[in-house]
């Protein structure tokens, strides 16, 4: 299930990310990559001997300091899973990885829209779910409707 952390580290350093930590958490093996380097690192992981061919999932999290993007990779030949995390500032640039993983096409649009990020390098960087003029809804700073507002209707 868990890939070898040292191998992951060596792949990351070969891809130009030198002091990248790869550690085991409750989630599994998590490595951290800088925001603009994500496409290159993910491509390197895909092409490496670990063979992470599938982007299972991708999500953003509002950590309070910025947006953290989590890429969930899966290697089918070795049956291993790896999580790559990227920290982005609010309103930062989300670099598209769709050239490596086409399955990120809609997910990136969704994440960029709901967290208010700017999509870079995406072939169709439009809004996906909401209409124009809505705030980035999944940020913690955007409140849900209050009970009073719902009651007044």
């Amino acid at each position, binding site marked *: 299930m868990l890939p070898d952390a040292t191998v992951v580290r060596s792949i990351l350093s070969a891809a130009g990310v030198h002091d990248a930590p790869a550690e085991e958490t409750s989630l599994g093996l998590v490595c951290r990559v800088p925001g603009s380097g994500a496409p290159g690192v993910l491509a390197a992981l895909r092409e490496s001997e670990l063979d992470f061919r599938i982007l299972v999932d991708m999500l953003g999290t509002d950590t309070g300091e910025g947006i953290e993007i989590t890429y969930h990779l899966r290697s089918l030949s070795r049956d291993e899973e790896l999580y790559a995390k990227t920290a982005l500032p609010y309103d930062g640039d989300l670099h598209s990885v769709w050239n490596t993983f086409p399955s990120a096409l809609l997910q990136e649009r969704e994440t960029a829209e709901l967290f208010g990020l700017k999509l870079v390098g995406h072939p169709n960087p439009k809004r996906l*779910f*909401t*209409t124009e003029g*809505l*705030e980035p*809804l999944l940020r913690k700073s*955007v409140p*849900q*409707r209050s009970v009073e507002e*719902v009651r007044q*209707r």
Partner: protein
Amino acid sequence: MAIDRFTGEHSVAFIRSEQLFDLARRHSLWYLAFGIACCAIEAPMSASGPRFDFDRMGVFFRASPRQADVMIVAGTVNRKMAETVRMLYDQMPEPKWVVAMGACASTGGPFREYPNVVLGVDKVVPVDVYIPGCPPRPESVQYGFIQLQEKIKAQTEERLAARRHGS
């Protein structure tokens, strides 16, 4: 004029034919095949299935809004969908009715706190019958349609009564 008694707005012929048309409207409620969310599985789908069979009471689906009488709003309406719902409502010919099916279409339901969700479809189109439930069982929807029939009947009678008193 004497002839007015037979052809005018208060004549027996006019009133009777109007009653006849209302009877027809009541028993031929074609709904727009238009499901939004979870409720769509219960109302247009299960309801037209063998067990509940809305066709028994003449409730039948049409794919085009131009031929529909009733719009069942089955599901959560959000800001993006609201425009479409309104457009479909405008495309339906008069007389038309709207059934808000389920908690979401009535008030926003379990999703009411999300800013993208419209708090009830009645913000967008006038609603005639609200059906509670999440999702309502097909039986509830059937009851809702019976209520809609009653409502059409009551409207006829009101109109007739107003005319009788007016003349």
